[in-house]
Structure formats: C-alpha cells, structure tokens
C-alpha cells in the first residue's frame, strides 16, 4: 500500500466520498459492524463533549480549550484498533483517543479547568500527557519506541502532531532518529490547514506533509483524515509495518479544524465562511453516519437518542467534576521531586505562616 500510494505521487488516499459512498473498494478495511458502531458512537460522544466544553468555557466554567471539532476521525481510527500496551503520544486535539485509552472525561475537564490532577490521565495506561510546547513530544515517542524495541515488545507508539508542528526542529530530529533506530512509531500529522492563523502555504514549502517521509527513508501516506475508513486502513497498515519491526511510518491526515484554534481565538481574522462551509461537507462524523444509515447499521432516531445520552453523560460528569474540584497548597510542592527538598519544605512552611498571619489579620 505504501508503494501504491507513494507520496511522490501526491495522491490522497480515500475510501468513501463526502456522502459516505464507498469509492475505493479495494482498500476497504475489515471491520465488523459492532466495532464500527462502537467507533461511531465514540466519535459522537467525543464531539458532544468537545462542543459542550466550548460552551462551558463560554459560561466561564472552564479556561482556554482547543476544540477537536472536525478532526475526530483521525484519532478515533487509532482508538478503535490500538492494543492495550501501545503507547499514545498526544498533541492536544485527540479527545476520542484519550477516552478510548481509558482517560476519564473528568481528567480532561480538570486539565482545562486548570488542575494538574487531570494532566496525567490517572486511569489510562501508556499515554503521555497533552504536549503544550508544539512537537516537543515527538522525541519522547522515539524513546518510548526504543524501549519497546529494547524490551522486544510488539507494541507501537502513536505520536501526534499538527501541520504547524512539522516546521519545528524536534519534528525533524525525531523522524530522523526513528528512521535510524528503526523504532515502532507511527507518526500522525493532523494537517488541519492552519497553525492558529498561519495557513499551510505559509508554514511549509511542499504541497503535502506526506512527502516529507521521503527525507527520512520512511513510508509515508497522505490520507483523507475525515474519511474514517481510509484513516482506519492507513493506521492498520502503518501499525502492521511498525509492529513487525520494519520501523516508523509517517501518516498525513488531511483534515480541518472546524472550530477556533482555542476558545480565545477568532478564526474570522484569517479564514472565510466559504472555506468553513466547504469543509462542513467533508465532516468526518457526518460522512460515517451517512455510510451507517445507507448500510442500515444505524438510524436517525438512534442517532438522536445517542447524542442526547452523550450530552447528558457529559453534563453529569462535568457537574461532578465541578463539585469535586479542590486544590491544596501541597499540590504545588509535592510532585516536583521524588522527595521534597529542604528548600521546598521551607518555602511551603513560609507560605503557611503567611496564610496564618493573613487569617489572624482579618
């Protein structure tokens, strides 16, 4: 497959069209219906959560949040087929995947409410935290990959980054190390056309990201990231490659950030309504839904019911999180080192003395 869709050919790997019709039977992946429905339901759940977080933010109940709206199929394609011990190295727009990996939505809330207790995904196994400095997580993926190889495990690392992230030095270094060390890492570039306000053409000199794989002697593939089946197949092939000891792969998932960069961003400064409408037609959830309905695997009524249930669940979890929210002084100090150094001990004690003084003063 990596030869058929070799990046020098500049083709986009697609399986279904915008209406959910299969246009490329040859590469249609084997997924049983229950897995497919599970994937769809997770997509819908993640989307509901995503949209609701944005509205909580508007209500002042959460801080800045970067929506994944419109890009969900990319990470769901990993979510639905990864193995338990596989590693996930997120960028920061992969909500369906975090949840599938076992992270609780409450942790996601906590993180964006400004509480470190949400950052480490307490319930999830083998997933790094969200990476705030762009692309700096990719070298970590290489190290995780090395550990899998060193310990002779047949797991893989799924590492995410955005189109903007490909301009960084860390992207290049990590790709090169991964190639030289032949580590099992699947690099997934979510090319959502923008890095905040900076469009793809201002970001990089090539027409595609996939072509960059050539510079590392690594298979690369340009995939319609809003086509769940294409993404699924691409991840399947890439995982097989990596898992079997053949080294890393670069997947470019062509998608679009339908929401704002973050809740502090105003996209109309740098893009048009027309462009947004164009991409609305290619929406990944809409397309998979159309496929399911056409193929009688799902109905509009079920969809309505599911969406409502999702929203209810999200809201319940959110309210619970709000109620549970707490932050003690110890949180500031106690996790930086394996043992609290004297300096920190004293600084903490001093702060407590201040608090006592302050309480007395009133």
């Amino acid at each position, binding site marked *: 497959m990596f030869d058929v869709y070799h990046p020098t050919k500049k083709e986009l790997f697609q399986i279904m069209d915008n209406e959910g019709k299969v246009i490329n039977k040859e590469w249609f992946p084997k997924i049983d219906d229950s897995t497919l429905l599970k994937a769809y339901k997770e997509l819908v759940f993640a989307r509901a959560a995503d949209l609701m977080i944005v509205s909580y933010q508007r209500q002042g109940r959460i801080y800045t949040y970067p929506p994944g709206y419109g890009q969900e199929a990319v990470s769901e394609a990993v979510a639905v087929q990864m193995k338990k011990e596989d590693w996930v190295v997120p960028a920061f727009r992969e909500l369906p995947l975090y949840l599938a990996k076992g992270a609780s939505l409450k942790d996601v809330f906590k993180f964006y*409410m*400004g*509480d*470190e207790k949400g950052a480490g995904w307490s319930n999830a196994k083998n997933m790094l935290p969200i990476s705030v400095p762009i692309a700096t997580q990719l070298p970590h993926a290489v190290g995780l990959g090395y550990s899998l190889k060193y310990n002779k495990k047949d797991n893989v690392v799924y590492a995410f980054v955005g189109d*903007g992230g490909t301009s960084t030095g860390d992207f290049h270094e990590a790709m090169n190390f991964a190639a030289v060390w032949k580590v099992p890492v699947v690099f997934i570039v979510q090319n959502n056309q923008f890095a905040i306000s900076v469009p793809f053409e201002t970001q990089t000199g090539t027409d595609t990201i996939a072509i960059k794989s050539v510079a590392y002697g690594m298979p690369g593939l340009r995939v319609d990231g809003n086509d769940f089946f294409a993404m699924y197949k691409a991840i399947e092939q890439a995982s097989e490659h990596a898992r079997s000891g053949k080294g890393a792969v670069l997947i470019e998932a062509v998608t679009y950030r339908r929401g704002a960069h973050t809740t502090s961003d105003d996209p109309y*400064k740098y893009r048009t309504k027309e462009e947004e409408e164009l991409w609305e037609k290619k929406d990944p959830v809409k397309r998979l839904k159309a496929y399911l309905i056409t193929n009688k695997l799902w109905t509009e009524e079920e969809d309505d019911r599911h969406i409502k249930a999702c929203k209810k669940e999200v809201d319940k979890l959110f309210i619970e999180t709000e109620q549970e929210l707490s932050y003690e002084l110890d949180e500031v100090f106690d996790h930086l080192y394996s043992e609290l150094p004297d300096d*920190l001990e004293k*600084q903490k004690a001093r702060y407590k003395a*201040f608090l006592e003084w*302050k309480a007395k003063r009133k």
Partner: protein
Amino acid sequence: MKIMNMVKAINDALDLKLKEDKSIVVYGEDVGVEGGVFRVTEGLQQKHGADRVFDSPLAESTIIGSAIGMAVAGMRPVVEIQFSGFAYPAFDQMVSHLARMRNRTRGKYTTPAVVRMPYGGGINALEMHSESMEAFYGHTPGLKVVIPSTPYDAKGLLVSAIESEDPVIFMEPKRIYRAIKQEVPEELYSIPIGKAKVVSPGTDITVVAYGAMVREAQKAAALAEKEGISVELIDLRTIYPLDRETIVESVKKTGRVAVVAEGPTTFGVGAEITALVNEGAFLSMEAPPKRITGFDTLVPYPQGEHFYMQSPEKILFEIIDTMNY
C-alpha cells in the same frame, strides 16, 4: 497624549519605528495577518506591508536565527516569541549567537535585534504560558534584558531596544497588557536601558520590583503605609545590565531591602539583588535582604496559581517581617 494600555503602547512604538526606519521588520508566529495572539502587532501588516510585518513558520530557533542573519546584514528585526515558555527551542540561537556575534567578530558583525516575548503568570493559562525565567537571559553574557511595567515605559523602552546596537530580550508582562491605562505621548520618545526608576520615595525599606510586580508592590506599599512603614519602591526596568547604583543608594538610606519577582527564588533575580546590596551597602544593612519571589516549583495550573503569585498582602507580610528583624 493619548490613553493607552501596554498592548497599544507597544503597537505604537512598532508602528512609529517601522515608519521611520526601513531596515526594521517585525515577524513571528501569527504576527502578520492575525496581528499576534495578544494583538500587539495588529494592523501593522496592513500599514507597512507583508515584507515588513509577517508570519513565520512555527520554529522559534529559526525565528531568532534568521533575525541574527538579518541583523548582521544591517537590518533591525523585531521578532515575537508567542510566549516566553516557547523561547527555549531558540535558547541556543540566543546564547550561542545572538549574544556572541559582536564579541566573536570583534565588532565587525553585530546583532541589533529585539526579541519580544510576553512572560509571567496571572492569566489562568495552560502550562508553559506563565513563566518568569528572565534570570536565564540575565545570566547570558552579551544580552540586554528589559522589562517594562507600564504602557509609558513599554513604549519608551521598546524604542530604546530597537535603537540599541546590542541585542535586547524584551519581556512583556502579559498580565498587565490591558490592565493599566495611562497617558502616553503619541510621538516617539525613549527611556534609557540600564536605568532603574524610583517609583515612589520612602525611608524604611527599599522594595525592588519589575514588570507586573511593580503594581503589586505599589499596592503593598500603600498597605505598609497604613502600618507606618515607608517604602521606597524601585522599578528595575532593566534586568541586565542592572542599575546597581540606584538600588545601593536607596538601601544606604533605608537599611532594608526586599525584592519582588515572580520567577523561582534560587539563582533568581532576588539573589543577585541581595548580592549587589551586600557588595554596595553592607554596612548600612539592618536586616537580611528579603526575597519575595517564586517558589522553586513550576507555576501551578490556574487552580493553584494563587498560591504561587505574589499578592500585596504577601509582600506586606514579608515587609513587616523584615522591618521586625
């Protein structure tokens, strides 16, 4: 005169200098079309053209590295790092080249570039968006480090930074980007780099602050006043080269000193102020210099940030402690 906040004052400085000097270019991530995530460069691309005010790819090392090349060729690049917490990928370019080119070439090539970066906490941001690591740059020979505390200072100091023949790290206290409004002259003016400012005179204790902490220290000084303590407040304005004299003269008078800064305590700005006071006013010191500075921890996420940030009350607490020594 016009009422401006710091964002506007900086924008104004850039605008006027761009108009005056064709060798100036302004760039960085989201700086052009969008006008910066804090809107500091808003409108400048439309006014001065996309070859002078523009977006760069997402790569801090080459944002600063390319500025070094431009500066060597006689241009005056003013680049923006979106948040100071994202300057580290460019640390090598700053330490190894920006700071060194003049010395390395005995003055043949120079790098009069300005690196602007919003810094500091207090805006409920994600991790890496609240750092105050100015001591890194202050400890790097070859750099100048400037931090304004008001719109007026921001404009005048940025003009000096752009006109400086030396590279300047210009750190902007984003917390007060819009919080303080002030009358600011509409024309060009400059405030010298390397000179601290006595914000308000006093007799009992010298308080040294800079950036967003000046405002907190002012509030603390007002509280102290009520307790009968007269604070002499000094705004550093420049982190390197330090205006040692102004501080020493003040401490010779007051006998006591406290430093208010957001960054981590150990190896931070408070240590250097302590050292310079020891070296310059040892016999006048009636109490050990007080460091009202950040814990040696990370800046907590927003829920815990209030523990970390300096408040007027906390500053008062430490001032009283120092007075009672």
